[in-house]
């Protein structure tokens, strides 16, 4: 479950895949074994550092009573909605900023200043304003995703070669044609780089929100486990989060591999 490697999927043959996955698989196995041996012989109590086997047992139990699926679904919903909102706003604003120096001059001081405030510091405020439901988490998630996507959109659109604009204008292309046939594909590599960072951060955003105050979600599960000295539960929640982050990262990587085939192989 938590041995998804952060490497591109779908490329290469069976042998390649084995080569790529084998080291990760082996090192994960070695890690689990070391962990097991350590908990077994160090005498550290289970509620401080549970053994991998008790985490596994807790995992099975959380699956069978359906609680893990339920809370994972909640968190995933927050993440996906937050990503959608954050990426949409960042892309639109990023494009406008890239196209208008005047707008950039007006807005960039605010944007930079807003980055000086850690999201963790304003998360409680957002929960007060927006309630302890899913909305506040979606907004926190969107905020944390916003900046890297914005910056990469600006950089990506600015880097579109001027010569391609000349080409399009010599053919009397419309603004929409320039957007879809030049600006989008040309800025895609940098944009997807931003999306990759944003996707990973989105998990953090949702959890920060849930840790402030929530009735459901993996962050809630984590906190309940903490209060009840159910440390194996905390581990289950943490590993599920890692899996979510890796899956999102892997998804964006797969997009990159698919959409950027035309780039020089590096």
């Amino acid at each position, binding site marked *: 479950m938590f041995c998804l490697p952060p490497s591109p999927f779908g490329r290469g043959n069976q042998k390649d895949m084995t080569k790529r996955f084998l080291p990760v698989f082996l090192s994960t196995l070695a890690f689990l074994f070391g962990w097991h041996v350590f908990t077994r012989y160090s005498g550290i109590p289970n509620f401080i550092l549970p053994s991998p086997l008790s985490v596994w047992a807790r995992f099975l139990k959380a699956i069978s009573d359906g609680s893990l699926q339920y809370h994972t679904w909640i968190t995933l919903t927050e993440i996906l909605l937050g990503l959608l909102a954050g990426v949409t706003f960042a892309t639109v604003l990023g494009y406008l900023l890239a196209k208008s120096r005047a707008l950039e001059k007006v807005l960039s001081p605010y944007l930079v200043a807003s980055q000086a405030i850690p999201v963790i510091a304003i998360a409680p405020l957002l929960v007060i304003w927006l309630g302890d439901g899913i909305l506040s988490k979606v907004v926190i998630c969107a905020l944390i995703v916003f900046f890297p996507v914005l910056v990469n959109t600006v950089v990506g659109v600015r880097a579109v*070669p001027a*010569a*391609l604009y*000349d*080409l*399009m*204008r*010599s*053919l*009397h*292309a419309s603004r929409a*044609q320039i957007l879809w*046939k*030049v600006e989008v*594909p*040309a800025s*895609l590599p940098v944009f997807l780089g931003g999306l990759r960072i944003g996707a990973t951060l989105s998990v953090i955003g949702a959890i920060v929100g849930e840790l402030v105050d929530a009735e459901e979600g993996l962050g809630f599960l984590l906190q309940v486990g903490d209060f009840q000295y159910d440390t194996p539960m905390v581990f289950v929640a943490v590993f599920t989060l890692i899996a979510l982050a890796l899956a999102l990262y892997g998804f964006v990587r797969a997009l990159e591999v698919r959409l950027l085939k*035309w*780039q*020089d192989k590096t």
Partner: protein
Amino acid sequence: MPPPILTIRNLTTVFPDENGGLRALRDVSFDVHPREFICVLGPSGSGKTTLLRIVAGLLQPTSGQVTFARKQQPRIGMVFQQANLMPWRTVLQNIMLPLEIRGDGDHDAHKKAREMIELVGLQGFENSLPRDLSGGMAQRVAIARALIHDPDLLLLDEPFGSLDALTRERMWTELSRIWQARQKTVLMVTHSISESLFLADRVLVLTQRPGTIKMDLNVDLPRPRRDEMRYTAHFGKLARKLKEAIE
């Protein structure tokens, strides 16, 4: 002689820079008649590319006018000094771009693109990406792209600069053929005297920066022009004239 389709009057271009502006073109005037093939020769930095960009409507001159006879700008096919391909498009897709922008039928576009590929000798590379092409091949794709939408006015910026001698001479023949068969008007920048004498009706020579027209030479060599023509006395005389004007 028919009235000009393009009149260029007193073009002057100054690019802003730290010390009072960089003068690229100074008071350039000439007429272009329908179906004329004009070559522009001149030292590096004399404003040849700038001139083409102004005619294409990509750049506003600091002063002066570019006027098209039919009011509206004609359909333009442009080959840039660098191939300027879209790296995410295959050869075929790059060549089809002008038709796509015009919103032409897909089936027809494919057929035309294949004809163009044959014309520039890139059969077998239809689905290659620009990163897998040599410089000369990329430039040939750019030439095919400039021709596919049957433009009235071809603006060519050293289109054959990166081709080997053999391909270049084949492209000269092809370009002459297309120009004659399809009745196009061509404005072509080049560094090569023999290229200009092989192709042009008229050769304009620009001076060092700021470029201004130093010579407007009528090339009265018979067509079709063949390789042997180079060894004639008249060709030699014209070549010497141009050479002296450039130096």
